[in-house]
């Protein structure tokens, strides 16, 4: 991938510190911290209301971090497609599925008759599987992109969503349930899904660095740490640490996409987004740029899918319904397309407020309100309103159906955003594409840097080297 060929070793250290300070002051990082703090606080308070012990609190925080992590990762990857390149991909879930299934195929242990798993894998280490999964997602992206990129944006939308459904049907079908590859009995498990019976990802991760025993020691120490005093601390510590790993991945995605966006390659992508014909007229082979960007984004989606499902123990094809694609879109639109910080913010808000929020709200309300049985349908719920003006059964039914109503709320949020704030919280701000500062040199202090844009001083050194570095991308 030539995504990063433009970047040099990076700006001087002092410049980077400046950059961070400016960002904090400009409010992006501050806003993210504020939002995250608010969400976590709300969860802790609701945990207190629910009467959670420490264990419950830690569990809910770990679950929250997990979903913030996966949605932020997916939104970042989608931002490369839509925010940078203007490719309207609504088949996100298909690329996740390809990534996860290929990873499982490569990393699951070899089939042994009488084992727990119905089908086996190639038995290779997990990291090989992850790389294979990303590669497969990128290649699948290439296959989708080849016919679709020449078409209008809304045609690409329909082709990608159709492709994601084709992927789901393929994994559902009994034809791919079992087959032989390199003399191994492997398969995708069909409708009943796959058991992910490889070494657990965290264990594999720490073993790679020879830190597994140290980690186990840490877990024991954490559990017996005075005020905590947990018995069986491992599951909790595991999920907390996994949440932390996801946050690290967010950092890596963010860094990769920021570098990509600021490289000459990324500038062409933005030019394509704004006006493809102009980019074409300037001698850029826009199709090749689009395909590369699409493939990179697909690989990142595959990895995000792997990170989501690798720790779930099993995977079934019907997990990959189009609605998850739309979840990612809502996250991206909340944050603002075109902005990496916005994508992270959108992922956090989506996961914390729209995805997990209603369920917690329901739990809290049920804990606070007196216990009754909710009616089992809309009819029994509204009948009392007409018969005896008793709205309570309807309230219980509403609360009980929160899983459906939460999707209604998401739809309404999407409509509201399109009406009132289509650019999202942080999206579509002015970006400086020129390699030199074009603004009037009035003051010495640095002017505002748009996300993905450049801060004075930093951009000059960074970018002139980038220009001489690897311009001829075609």
């Amino acid at each position, binding site marked *: 991938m030539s995504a990063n060929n433009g970047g040099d070793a990076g700006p001087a250290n002092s410049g980077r510190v400046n950059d961070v300070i400016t960002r904090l002051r400009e409010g992006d990082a501050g806003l993210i911290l504020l939002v995250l703090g608010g969400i976590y606080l709300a969860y802790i308070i609701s945990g207190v209301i629910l009467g959670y012990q420490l264990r419950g609190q830690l569990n809910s925080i770990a679950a929250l971090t997990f979903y913030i992590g996966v949605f932020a990762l997916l939104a970042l990857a989608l931002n490369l497609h839509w925010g940078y390149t203007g490719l*309207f991909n609504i088949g996100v879930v298909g690329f996740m599925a390809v990534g996860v299934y290929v990873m499982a195929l490569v990393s699951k242990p070899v089939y042994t008759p009488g084992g727990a798993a119905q089908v086996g894998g190639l038995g290779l280490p997990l990291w090989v599987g992850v790389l294979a999964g990303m590669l497969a997602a990128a290649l699948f992206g290439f296959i989708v992109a080849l016919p679709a990129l020449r078409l209008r944006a809304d045609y690409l939308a329909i*082709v990608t969503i*159709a492709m994601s459904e084709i992927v789901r049907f393929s994994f559902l079908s009994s034809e791919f349930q079992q087959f032989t590859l390199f003399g191994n009995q492997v398969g995708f498990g069909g409708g009943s899904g796959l058991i992910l019976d490889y070494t657990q990802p965290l264990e594999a991760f720490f073993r790679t660095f020879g830190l597994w025993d140290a980690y186990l020691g840490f877990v024991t120490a954490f559990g017996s740490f005075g005020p905590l005093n947990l018995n069986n601390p491992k599951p909790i510590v595991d999920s907390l640490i996994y949440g932390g790993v996801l946050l690290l991945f967010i950092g890596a995605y963010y860094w990769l996409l920021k570098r990509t966006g600021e490289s000459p390659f990324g500038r062409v992508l933005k030019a394509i987004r704004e006006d493809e014909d102009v980019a074409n007229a300037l001698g850029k082979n826009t199709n090749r740029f689009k395909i590369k960007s699409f493939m990179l984004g697909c690989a990142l989606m595959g990895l995000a899918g792997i990170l989501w499902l690798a720790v779930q123990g099993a995977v079934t094809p019907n997990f990959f319904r189009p609605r998850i694609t739309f979840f990612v879109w809502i996250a991206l639109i909340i944050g603002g397309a075109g902005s990496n910080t916005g994508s992270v913010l959108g992922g956090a808000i989506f996961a914390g407020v729209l995805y997990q929020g209603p369920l917690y709200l329901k739990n809290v309300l049920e804990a606070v309100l007196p216990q009754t049985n909710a009616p089992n349908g809309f009819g029994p719920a509204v009948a009392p309103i007409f018969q005896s003006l008793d709205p309570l059964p309807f309230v219980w039914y509403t609360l009980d159906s929160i899983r*459906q109503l939460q*999707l209604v709320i998401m739809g309404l*949020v*999407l409509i509201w955003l*399109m009406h009132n704030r289509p650019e999202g919280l942080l999206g579509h701000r002015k970006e400086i594409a020129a390699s030199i500062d074009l603004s009037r040199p009035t003051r010495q202090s640095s002017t505002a840097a748009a996300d993905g844009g450049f801060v004075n001083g930093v951009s000059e050194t960074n970018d002139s080297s980038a220009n001489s570095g690897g311009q001829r991308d075609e």
Partner: protein
Amino acid sequence: MGIAETYSRSRQFVDRRPLTHSLAAAAGVGLVLYLLWVLVSQLVTGQLQIHELGELMWDGLMRGLVIGLAGVGLSMTYSILNFANFSHGDYISAGAFSGWATTYLIAGLGRADIGSLLLVGAGGSVFGGALGIGISTTPLAVVLGVVVAGIGAVALSLFVDRTVFKPLRGEDGITLLIASIGVAFALRYLMQFVFGSDVRGTTSQPPAYSFYVVDGWVRVNYHDMTLFVVAIGLMVGVHLLLQRSKLGKAMRAMSDNGDLARITGIPTEGVVRWTWIIGGALTGISGYIFVLWKGTLAFDDGWLLLLLIFAAVILGGIGSVYGAIAGGIVIGLTASMAVIWIPSAFARAAAFAVMILILLVRPQGIFAGRATA
């Protein structure tokens, strides 16, 4: 216009790479020959009998008529308002629910309580089969159901247009598309909230004729025929309306160039309203007869049909009524007959593959250049 743009770009593509294109054409011809060969060899060896083939084709035709009828509405809004309406599938379900609530109410009045009838037997409180619903047994209930399904979908699409799409009128297609995804989510899960998520049987077994075809019987039941008559009748009606009336002319003008249409004095908002009314009615009725034909109803029926409808509309060429109908029949036949060549799990996938192939070879669709007529 985007279509013209795509068109000229595809022409470029053809001119620049004659070799690639002829190779693709050769591959296409090869594929068709291979499929024919498989079909003929299956017929000769008796693996597939002629009457089975006939049944598959009839099934595909029925499915295709539903897709085509629903596609006309989608195609009209696509070309006049310039966006892919992802909530169209849920208009189908909404129309079906409103129509079937009416049918249940009329057919079951006095035999079950009104609440469960209006909720189309949510939670298994009433069964359509037990009420004996069918075109021959309860004709009034079915006819009124068809009418109400149309009215319900029209009311819904006008309401959604007024509240959601009208404020976005000048925006680009993608903004509207995203908003329509929001509408789709809200509608679908509101329907699940109200009507529940169970799949209910809606009709009793309708009487059927059997035709002897070469080596066996092909069954055609009353609901097949109802679907056929209603769909063909509406298609002819829409054709006449758009060909003969000034409205049709205004629609064609708008889909060609909205600004120019407004300058020439066409009341564009009025045309948009009529587009939603005609499209909505066809959509709601298609949802109703689809449920009548297959005999089951669930809250996501329309959504599951939506991608096939998109495939049909794109296949036929956006904005073309004939295109939507022809595309619908091609997609319906593909989805039903694909089982001859490939495992049934891939039948829907095959329909999508046909769409993608058409996009490759002829991105403007089969009937392009005949906007809204």
